[in-house]
């Protein structure tokens, strides 16, 4: 068995402490099972044994940025879970339409697929001109891609199926300019979008929103950290604003269950009450 094949739980904890002490990033409330897979993946990609990984993390400041970019999962899709976008269209947008401005925060947006999906949804609903979409992520490199709004044609083809299933008019490619093997999102969809770095664990409320989407981010956190971030979201929502979690993520905290009403239990859409 090669050295990169496995690490133990004590070794993982050792790494968490090292990263916290040297770089000030705290992964101690991350789900251990998936964090371990990410660390193993980095060791494989960079061809490092565990002791070598600790060594470069300690001595190479530039390596830490790469480590941070790889430790976070950046897998996303446009219109991931088409049924979610259908639910937004029928249950949430009519309500949002009554607000003067619609500010949306896509938290943990990675390379921007979700903010642009929301931008398309708002455009199709005729709400684009009064909406503003903020995409944030801990990973600056991914945000760079998000700002560009250029995706491989291969990805766009697989997203197009989601788009169709979401029941939206026309096809996904109507919203893109195709250039050889890439597709660039139309400029009008980029209007009223802003991408910036935000760390859910250490950063705080920065604006008031009518809707916050944070889908498939909570799965990487333990319940204590989830509650801490829920507090940030709750305090960032206007009265009767909406919070959307991933389709397999539910609010378990009794405190927030009382303050966030279930709008759609299958898609985990909540509305701030009281």
């Amino acid at each position, binding site marked *: 068995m090669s050295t990169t094949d496995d690490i133990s739980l004590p070794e993982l904890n050792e790494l968490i402490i090292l990263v916290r002490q040297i770089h000030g990033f705290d992964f101690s409330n991350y789900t251990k*099972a*998936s964090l371990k897979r990410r660390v193993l993946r980095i060791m494989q990609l960079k061809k490092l044994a565990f002791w070598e990984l600790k060594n470069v993390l300690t001595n190479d400041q530039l390596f830490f940025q790469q480590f941070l970019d790889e430790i976070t999962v950046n897998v*996303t899709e446009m219109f991931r879970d088409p049924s979610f976008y259908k639910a937004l269209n029928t249950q949430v947008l009519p309500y949002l339409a009554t607000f003067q401005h619609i500010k949306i925060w896509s938290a943990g947006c990675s390379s921007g697929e979700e903010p642009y999906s929301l931008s398309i949804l708002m455009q199709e609903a005729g709400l684009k001109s009064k909406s503003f979409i903020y995409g944030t992520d801990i990973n600056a490199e991914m945000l760079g891609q998000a700002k560009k709004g250029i995706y491989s044609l291969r990805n766009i083809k697989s997203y197009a199926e989601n788009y169709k299933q979401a029941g939206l008019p026309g096809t996904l490619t109507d919203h893109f300019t195709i250039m050889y093997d890439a597709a660039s999102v139309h400029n009008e969809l980029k209007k009223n979008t802003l991408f910036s770095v935000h760390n859910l664990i250490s950063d705080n409320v920065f604006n008031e929103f009518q809707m916050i989407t944070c889908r498939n981010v909570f*799965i990487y956190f333990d319940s204590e950290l989830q509650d801490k971030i829920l507090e940030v979201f709750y305090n960032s929502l206007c009265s009767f604003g909406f919070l959307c979690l991933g389709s397999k*993520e539910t609010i*378990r905290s009794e405190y927030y269950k009382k303050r966030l009403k279930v709008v759609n239990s299958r898609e985990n859409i909540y509305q701030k009450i009281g």
Partner: protein
Amino acid sequence: MANNTTNQLIKRLQSAEILLLGGSAGSFMPIFNLVRSIPQNHSQPIVVVIHRGKNNFSDIENLFGDNCRILVKEISDKDKIAGGHVYIAPANYHTLFEKGKTFALDVSEHVWYSKPSIDVTFESAADAYGDKCAAILFSGANQDGARGLLKLRDKGGLTIIQDPKDAEMHVMPQAAVDINAGEFILTSEQILKFMCESFVITTQP
């Protein structure tokens, strides 16, 4: 199979804290028949990982739910793992195990073009349960599951492979046989028979 081997297999099936069933193309019927035969009050949690397309949820849950005596549940993140349940790995997520007997989901890269990946679930179970885990790998058209099954076997878990000759698609079980990941290689009929025998004894008062 010799009588004492059979008894040993059944005993180990019974003593496992958790049972994992994995498969892809051609695995639905053998897994379905097995889950259908589980008694209502069965104390061992059972986790099913079957490859499927990303947007077709609930079909497996409904089919299982309508035909089984045991509770069938599609896994949500941080669900507590309890006996009396068959848990189905959701489409477009990997299913992992977290300390304190809870599930943890993950949307990271596909493994063997699959999400859920059987390897990911088996490997994580090897970490969380070690030798207290039993796993069966059924029919399938790619090599997902073999590596995870081997890791489980290395950690002392009970590993069973559906005989590739008996499987509708032999690639998946054959990949596991090739790396010697299975302690037992059985037909789906034998698997069903031994499982049923293990159920009968576990559910006696």
